[in-house]
């Protein structure tokens, strides 16, 4: 028993240490600390992040503890998932698979170890945010007494079980067939939206996975007691950026009444999490080699399996003569872009291609009333193509081969042009429709989007080194802007045409990434450094 616990401890510890030394973890910690500062503005700061009908609670331990619990679950369910969702496939990518597979560790212990490590990482981030809120309570000085229980109760009742469930989902999505890649990311994003909506409008605590509703309702009830005019706005507290004039009205909230019946509900969540971990262990194939060795390209003519021949140990008589290698006359870009496009589109299944064709043609087939609803969906389908931009060589360890063959900036341009071409291709139907309808402002806004999306993808890929960063930011942006028409976030101009803003942003991103690329290649710094 002790030996088992000790093995589990070291498994969790190694996963945890490796995660905590990553840049993404440090970034999330930095964001948490900043969030702690930004989400607790001074009464005269001129803005609020969370208010109930224009009032808020004084910054006492109960109010800030509740706020921290809500923010932790809502944000970590998105960003924490994307940060931690590839721990198992990461082991395979780093060629640790055979080492783990040949070790005596059982599947359930390995998977549970991964889930536990992810859970601890999430708890650490949650704890950092909590400490940041405590510090802000003391800094703002609206309530002097720091009551630890007021911070710990929502952490215990809400954050802890919710993050456990999330940790189990990070491993499930990493082993469930088909969910490892972009499809899983999109599905989880949809799940996050759905859970968010259900949590806020939860008819009972059973469905309040983010723990928002139990806290929010208690806050709103208290606000209505202090300000009867708000009684019609029960449960209308919301997060966002709300400019305020003068000092905001406040009230004292003593915290939610944490009913022990909640424990049962949270135990069910934990049981569900354990169920997901067990399911993940059952699905986990212990890094078994896929049957790729016998795979023949579907378009290949000879599909019979052949055994690999060794390199013959024959003496080549004299100097080996091969056909001359003829360089392209003139610009190399067309050939490079063509090759890049082939690579980008390679591996896309028929089930991806057919809907893509339908989406491209759809703007020509629907009525004028439906076209605006359709347009955003065209620009989510190529997500898997865009998210590879700037990350592919790092992911597949081909950087050395590529950088010795082509200039890094030329490669960057090639990828950007290919990304723009793909986006243009997907926009073909929409563009024809805009021209036919004489919608020049819409065409201009959409055209800006065509430049903006691949630039954003390449920028985040180059800076972050992982496709997940673009996927999560783009999906969030796309959901709020083109789909839900949040002002200024609609980069496609479906509802809010601001081509100047997005053109400026494109140019800025472009310049920033070119600068970073030049710095990375040692052409901007006085000190030369590696690429």
């Amino acid at each position, binding site marked *: 028993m002790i030996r088992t616990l000790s093995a589990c401890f070291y498994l969790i510890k190694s996963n945890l240490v490796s995660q905590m030394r990553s840049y993404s973890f440090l970034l999330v910690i930095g964001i948490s600390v900043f969030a702690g500062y930004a989400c607790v503005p001074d009464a005269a700061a001129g803005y609020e992040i969370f208010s109930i009908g224009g009032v808020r609670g004084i910054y006492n331990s109960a109010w800030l503890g509740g706020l921290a619990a809500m923010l932790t679950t809502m944000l970590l369910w998105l960003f924490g998932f994307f940060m931690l969702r590839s721990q198992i496939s990461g082991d395979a990518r780093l060629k640790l698979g055979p080492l783990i597979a040949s070790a005596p560790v059982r599947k359930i212990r390995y998977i549970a170890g991964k889930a536990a490590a992810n859970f601890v990482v999430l708890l650490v981030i949650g704890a950092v945010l909590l400490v940041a809120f405590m510090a802000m309570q003391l800094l703002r000085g609206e309530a002097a007494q720091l009551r630890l229980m007021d911070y710990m109760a929502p952490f215990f009742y809400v954050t802890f079980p919710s993050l456990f469930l999330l940790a189990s989902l990070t491993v499930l999505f990493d082993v469930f067939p088909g969910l490892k890649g972009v499809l899983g990311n999109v599905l989880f994003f949809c799940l996050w939206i759905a859970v968010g909506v259900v949590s806020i409008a939860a008819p009972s605590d059973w469905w309040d996975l983010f723990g928002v509703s139990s806290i929010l309702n208690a806050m709103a009830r208290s606000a209505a007691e202090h300000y009867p005019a708000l009684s019609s706005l029960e449960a209308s507290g919301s997060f966002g950026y709300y400019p305020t004039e003068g000092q905001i009205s406040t009230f004292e909230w003593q915290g939610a009444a944490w009913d022990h019946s909640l424990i049962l509900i949270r135990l069910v969540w934990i049981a569900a999490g354990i169920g997901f971990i067990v399911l993940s262990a059952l699905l986990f194939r212990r890094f078994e080699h896929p049957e790729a060795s016998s795979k023949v390209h579907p378009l290949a003519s000879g599909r019979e399996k052949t055994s690999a021949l*060794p390199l013959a140990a024959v003496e080549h008589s004299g100097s080996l003569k*091969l056909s001359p290698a003829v*360089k392209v006359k003139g610009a190399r870009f067309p050939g490079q872009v063509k090759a890049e496009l082939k690579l980008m589109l390679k591996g896309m299944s028929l089930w991806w291609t057919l809907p893509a064709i339908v989406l491209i043609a759809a703007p020509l087939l629907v009525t004028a009333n439906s076209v605006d609803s359709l347009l955003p969906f065209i620009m989510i389908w190529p997500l898997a193509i865009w998210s590879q931009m700037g990350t592919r060589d790092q992911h597949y360890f081909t950087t050395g081969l590529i950088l*010795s063959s082509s200039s890094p900036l030329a490669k960057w341009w090639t990828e950007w042009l290919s990304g723009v071409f793909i986006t243009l291709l997907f926009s073909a139907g929409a563009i024809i429709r805009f021209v036919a309808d004489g919608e020049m402002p819409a065409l201009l806004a959409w055209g800006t989007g065509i430049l903006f999306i691949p630039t954003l993808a390449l920028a985040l890929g180059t800076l972050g080194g992982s496709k997940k960063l673009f996927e999560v930011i783009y999906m969030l942006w796309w959901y709020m802007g083109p789909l839900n028409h949040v002002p200024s976030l609609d980069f496609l101009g479906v509802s809010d045409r601001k081509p100047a803003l997005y053109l400026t942003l494109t140019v800025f991103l472009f310049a920033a990434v070119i600068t970073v690329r030049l710095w990375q290649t040692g052409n901007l710094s006085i000190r*030369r450094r590696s690429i």
Partner: protein
Amino acid sequence: MELQIEQVSKSYGAKHALSSITLKLKPGVTGLLGPNGAGKSTLMRMLATIEKPTQGRITWNGVDIAGQPQVLRKELGYLPQDFGVYPNLTPLEFLEYIAAMKGLSARSARTRINELLEILNLSNDRKRLLGGFSGGMRQRVGIAQSLLNDPSLLIVDEPTVGLDPGERIGFRNLLSSLSGDRIIILSTHIVTDIESIAPSIALMAKGRLVKYAAPENLIQSVEQKVWNCILPAASLPEMQAKYTISSAIQRSDGIHTRIVSDLRPSANATLLPASLEDAYLYTVSSLGVQP
């Protein structure tokens, strides 16, 4: 055709990976030999224009490649020690992609790819996805990509890793047949790979160039210093602590040890003809480096 390395140093923060390397290379195979951590791969990455020297310069036909890397890239073939491939491409598609990056015309690239796949015995597997290739087969694809543009400078870093003994001989023969009119730099820690094809050897240790000489000169430097001793098993650890032992073979009469030493290690020791491996071990261990 000339590659000149002039006083090249490379540091990563406070860590010095290379110190003042100077070397002039002409057509033919140059073997780069050294223990792990000697700085071979760092030097190769700089020669392959992937990294830039902290100090000194590398010139290709008189042009500084830090300032104008493209001049060398056009004539460069590089096989890194660790490299990946795009798993959802076939070798044919992968090589077409690399050929495009190297700026080769599609038609000439296709012909050359077919020839290379034939030579490297990959023709039958040309339409299989790279994701299912064995390590040795991937290594051969790597070799093929390095030869795509008929490079004047071919840099191969541990190229025989993953190849079986027969394939290693095949690769060495291939390299020999290519060496006539180009500079080939072959880095390895397998002495026999270098011995059979490299007429000159650069020996590196602790980020420095220790020796640059022909194999026979290196061997000559340890003539009369290689001894055969038959030892009882119990005394082996003591001898290992005192001398550089290049091999130890268990026999019925004791352990036959091959010792490289200036002095006769024991009264019954007999002289043996020196090999390149002995010379390598002697030189490296005399610098206090574990070979």
